[in-house]
């Protein structure tokens, strides 16, 4: 993919792009963006795929004033202006889905079809129960078990990773904490704004996702009129990584319909 950098409100934003055609904006999950992930090649066909790294993630900067997902949404609306994109289809995974929802509630007319992949961002359950399990106070060994259908395929050997990759991984996690810490994984206002989204919307979820439950996604979908849900078997919170072909098939079918 082609990498470029655009400074918005004083903050350098890294953008990876590939392909030509109608734009498709892809917003990465909390683990960050990796340009060599297999699913990207499967959804890029006939499209201009645009993948920014969120502030504080990957090669993007982080300004002192930024501390909310709403801030990121505003940065990306300006990024669309700067890239000359009047209207685009949109895909967002996990926190990327939350950013996508914030953007779409502000300017729904600038988006075509929207795919939310295991999105976070709303609170629908009771006050004494977390909608999203607290990944920050879970024993570290437990986290992959709720993230993946088959965690054994996603074991990182830190000793084989270069310092730069480790530093990016650590910084991504730090930035994730900054943006989602409180209220945990949601913006209390967002669910009251989702009614603005009348676009064609697909919610995707891995059947084994231990972070975003089926009930949570159903509640999310119920707040977005006309949306529907598809479940990808043998996948956890990142179906794009665990079942890239099934993920791409679902996305491509939705975009082609």
């Amino acid at each position: 993919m082609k990498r470029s950098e655009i400074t918005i409100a004083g903050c350098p934003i890294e953008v990876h792009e590939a392909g030509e055609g109608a734009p498709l904006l892809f917003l990465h999950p909390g683990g960050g963006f990796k340009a060599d992930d297999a699913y990207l090649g499967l959804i890029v066909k006939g499209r201009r795929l645009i993948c920014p790294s969120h502030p504080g993630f990957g090669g993007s900067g982080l300004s002192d004033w930024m501390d909310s997902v709403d801030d990121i949404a505003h940065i990306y609306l300006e990024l669309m202006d700067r890239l000359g994109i009047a209207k685009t289809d949109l895909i967002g995974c996990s926190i990327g889905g939350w950013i996508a929802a914030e953007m779409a509630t502000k300017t729904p007319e600038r988006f075509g079809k929207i795919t939310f992949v295991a999105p976070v961002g709303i609170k629908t359950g009771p006050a004494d129960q977390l909608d999203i399990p607290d990944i920050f106070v879970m024993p570290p060994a437990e986290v992959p078990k709720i993230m993946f259908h088959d965690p054994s395929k996603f074991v990182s050997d830190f000793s084989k990773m270069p310092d730069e990759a480790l530093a990016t991984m650590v910084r991504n996690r730090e930035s994730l904490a900054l943006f989602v810490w409180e209220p945990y994984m949601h913006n209390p206002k967002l669910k009251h704004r989702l009614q603005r989204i009348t676009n064609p919307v697909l919610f995707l979820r891995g059947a084994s996702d231990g972070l975003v439950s089926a009930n949570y996604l159903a509640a999310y979908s119920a707040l977005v009129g006309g949306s529907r849900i598809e479940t990808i078997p043998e996948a956890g919170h990142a179906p794009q990584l665990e079942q890239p072909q099934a993920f791409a098939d679902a996305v491509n079918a939705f975009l082609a319909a």
Partner: protein
Amino acid sequence: MQAWHFSETAYPYLPPQDSYPSIRVSLPNKHYDPRKGAELWDRYLKEWQIAEEEGMDIMLNEHHQTATCVDPAAPLVLAALARLTTKARLLILGNPIANRRQPIRVAEEMAMVDVLSRGRVEAGFVRGVPYEISPANSNPVRMNERFLEALDLIVKAWTNHDGPFSHEGRFFHHRNINIWPRQWQDPHPPVWVSTTSSGGARQVGERGFIQATFLTGYQATRRVFDAYREGWRAAGRGKYVANDRLAYAALVYVGETEAEAHAGAEKLLWYVTANKVAPQYANPPGYVPVEANVHMLRGAEHPLSAFAKAANVEAAIRAGLMFAGTPDQVFNQIKRHYEYVGGYGHLLNMGQAGFLEHEESVKGIRMFAREVYPRLKEMFPKTAISGQYGDVPPEPPEESVLKSSSRGIDLTRDGPLATALGAGS
């Protein structure tokens, strides 16, 4: 040298350590019996009163959701001490202001106790250890920035006497700041900040506050104090830094004999050995810089964590985490440490921990206060200039080290400490 008696006011009557994942944050409070807790508080307060009688000053601190320090509201205990004592300085170290939503409330509390004690408050501020993040639901990212904004705002609230002012900062917002009462001391109580990092110490030095560092031994203490002095000079505060700007906290136990000292010292190690913390509480994202986390992923370990795995009195003394032994031994240990790190005006004596019983604690306080403290005051006056290193090795003189062979009772096998740690099972 000014010495402060400090207890973390622990609740040590816990089930075996292997039966719970963490003494911090998640240990259910069903293990706390308020009746036993009240008895403990009676004696901890009494020990502070005895320390005052012996000419020492008083230090207390605050932690949350933990048995290691059952004082989640240190200003309350500070207020009690204000009325239970008459002459000791009262150091709270400290207020965890990176985790407080309202710094002005903290300014009010300190001012209130300063009036109650007729000007005896020493107001300490801490960023807070990582396991305080969860109890406070506080964001671990940008804690330093929050800490400094809160600290500057508190000092401003203390020193403003002409009606309301406003603060619209990065993290805190107040439109009408006008605290009552105003504090007794003018311009305000001495401000202390604890940090164990060079970067933090430099910032404290720039502001000229008193810098305390905990259990950092020889080399790290010297680095922290050096950074403080650098910051002090860089801010144009003058060429010389007086000793009374710097404080060191160590485990301290003085006995009449080596055997008695060893028995007390071994019980003090509870501070280190009981601190079983689940990894997710010990290192929340953003608490330490990215580079430090990369080192940890490569297997680097915090010196204190490494020490805790094989904690023993002799190693603690050699590392400068502990000063224990007969009066001569303790004096020589402190003297060597003082000379190596470049001097400090305050010794924060962690003189009670875990299962160190009342009589033993009092014995340790009295032995220190009567047999060691006068010599420290004479040899290291608070007007001395810090930063003058002695040409000495980073370890105590060999004859002053309390050896394992001088052990009185073998607590590792069947004593109450061993039982509490689950070592016997």
